[in-house]
């Protein structure tokens, strides 16, 4: 087990710089998720950690040791790939045992380790099969078993669940997290799925275009997104953005857009007249029949447990989530109430958080 430190890490492919000045530290035993849209550099950063890509600038340290020039096999890491990358010509047992066989461990030791991993991952009945004879979820578990038997200092996961169907993904998510709680091995997990990030991570690193946008616990990222991008990326359904400005209403600042005026907590540091983008999570919009703000219903989608509503206020569309069944037809009028404490205010030009 070890910490992983990134110091001013950069990556160029030829003349193209894809990443610059990435610096952060992953503490020992933490489960850290690198989250971002496709092409944000999260997989590249993971591959540099694994030693599969060269590090153009800066330093990566695992357990305090500089890794820049260290061969992947000597980094004491294990990686699970998005497409599993199982060895198709070897049986499940040999797939899992491969790293131990290469390191010339004794047959008894190999068998002990493989049995342990197979037992942990419910793979014991499949040890004698070839990868092609397994289902997607089983293949995924073999890939994890291959990583487990090494007892590495750091686990690297590269979007390991993205090829599974939704139900299996939910189950594997839980299994991976439980495994981490049991083994306490430092884990770096790359995904573009914010649900995976929110449910599994001790800490999330949100990335965009080769830069880090925010680092924090899932709660911090959700409750206090650092900018519009993070606010938009986290949360489902995604956050509403309302363009408006700050007005002074009876000595207290208020967010104003169209006919809507939302008073802000007095301690909010804003300038009167400042152009702002107001982020409002759908779950923070309370929908009822009576209330201060009127809205028109455009669409109601029921997920069973809750209802997702698309509403219109002064020509701006807003999403809201109501618990249970919300009976309304398109064209009906409903009322909204919004707790000012749940508003996220971002500067309209820099898109950075201001409250």
């Amino acid at each position, binding site marked *: 087990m070890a910490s992983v430190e990134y110091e001013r890490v950069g990556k160029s492919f030829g003349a193209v710089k894809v990443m610059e000045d990435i610096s952060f530290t992953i503490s020992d035993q933490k489960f850290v998720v690198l989250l971002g849209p496709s092409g944000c550099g999260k997989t590249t950063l993971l591959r540099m950690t694994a030693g599969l890509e060269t590090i153009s600038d800066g330093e990566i340290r695992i357990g305090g040791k500089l890794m820049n020039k260290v061969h992947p096999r000597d980094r004491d890491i294990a*990686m699970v790939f998005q*497409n599993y990358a199982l060895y198709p010509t070897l049986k499940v047992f040999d797939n899992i045992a491969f790293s131990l066989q290469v390191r010339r461990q004794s047959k008894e030791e190999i068998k002990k380790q493989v049995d342990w991993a197979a037992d942990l991952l419910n793979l014991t009945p499949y040890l004698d099969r070839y990868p092609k004879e397994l289902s997607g979820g089983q293949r995924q578990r073999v890939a994890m078993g291959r990583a487990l038997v090494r007892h590495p200092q750091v686990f690297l996961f590269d979007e390991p669940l993205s090829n599974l169907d939704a139900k299996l993904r939910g189950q594997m998510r839980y299994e991976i997290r439980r495994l981490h709680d049991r083994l306490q091995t430092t884990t770096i997990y790359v995904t573009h799925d914010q649900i995976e990030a929110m449910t599994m991570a001790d800490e999330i690193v949100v990335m965009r275009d080769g830069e880090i946008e925010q680092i924090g616990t899932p709660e911090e990222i959700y409750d206090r997104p650092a900018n519009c991008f993070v606010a938009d990326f986290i949360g489902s359904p995604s956050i509403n953005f309302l363009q408006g400005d700050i007005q002074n209403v009876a000595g207290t600042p208020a967010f104003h857009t169209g006919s809507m005026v939302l008073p802000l907590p007095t301690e909010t540091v804003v300038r009167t007249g400042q152009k702002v983008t107001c982020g409002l999570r759908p779950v923070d919009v309370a929908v009822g029949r009576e209330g201060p703000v009127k809205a028109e219903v455009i669409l109601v989608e029921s997920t069973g447990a809750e209802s997702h509503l698309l509403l219109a206020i002064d020509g701006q569309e807003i999403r809201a989530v109501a618990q249970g069944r919300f009976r309304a037809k398109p064209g009906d009028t409903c009322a909204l109430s919004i707790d000012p404490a749940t508003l996220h205010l971002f500067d309209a030009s820099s898109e950075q958080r201001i409250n």
Partner: protein
Amino acid sequence: MVLTPAQRLLRAIAAWAVVLLFAFPIYYWITVSLKLGRDIFAIPPKIFNFEASAKSYEEVFGISLGFEQGIAVLPGGGDFYMAPRLMDSIVIAVCSTALAVVIATLAAYALSRMRFRGQHHFVFWILSTRMMPPVAVAIPMFFIYKDFGLLDTYSGVVLVHALMNMPLAVLLLKSFFDDIPKEIDEAALIDGASRFLVFRKLVLPMAMGGIAATAVLCFIFSWTEFLFALTLTQTGLKTVPVVSSTFVTSTGTAWGNMAALGTAAMLPAFVFILLVQKNLVRGLTLGSVKQ
């Protein structure tokens, strides 16, 4: 799509027609090898109702099949006895195929997996060696071979056939290696394997289909190659395509013997393809990665 019985019948007839169209010349060639001289040019052609004789085979292979044995002499004074020539062809085709495939497999893996400066130029250079027409290099090769003592030797012809096959084999195999996900190599490297171990234990078994296909192509090329086999050999060895031409002489053509040799020459190629065909089946990579 569900076909009606009439459509199925029509499809079967079309398929058989194509098969017969391609198979007929081979069948006819075999009948020529079994016919006596007068039947070969009979009009109308005797396709089924001819008197079968093994005379041509006896002469070509110097064996008696129940007829009176006598090594005949070609009208031009040459030799009918071709069994050693068939052996020459087999040795040269097998050795040159093995040499080309072994080297090309290693080269193709390196080109598929490793990155180095000027790689694209290097691949193009490999291909460009095939752009020069063989006839343009045949004469210089003759002099080079003469100086190096390679003329009229197995190693000489093996070398030139392997060299001729190499560019195509490298490019073909590279595309097969490119199809094998590189994550498998990366996973194995992280697992602690060396490059060579990854190649030998994981990638090579997955590429067997491609290697078999390449080997078939190399073998057929060497088996049928004429120009270099003619210019770089004298009396010590000769391949089947070269000696086939000796049946055409100033005083006549020994069609029956030529057909007998041609028919016999089909067999080794046929056997070779049978041997490797089980590897030609794709799908060895199935189950490795989620497509």
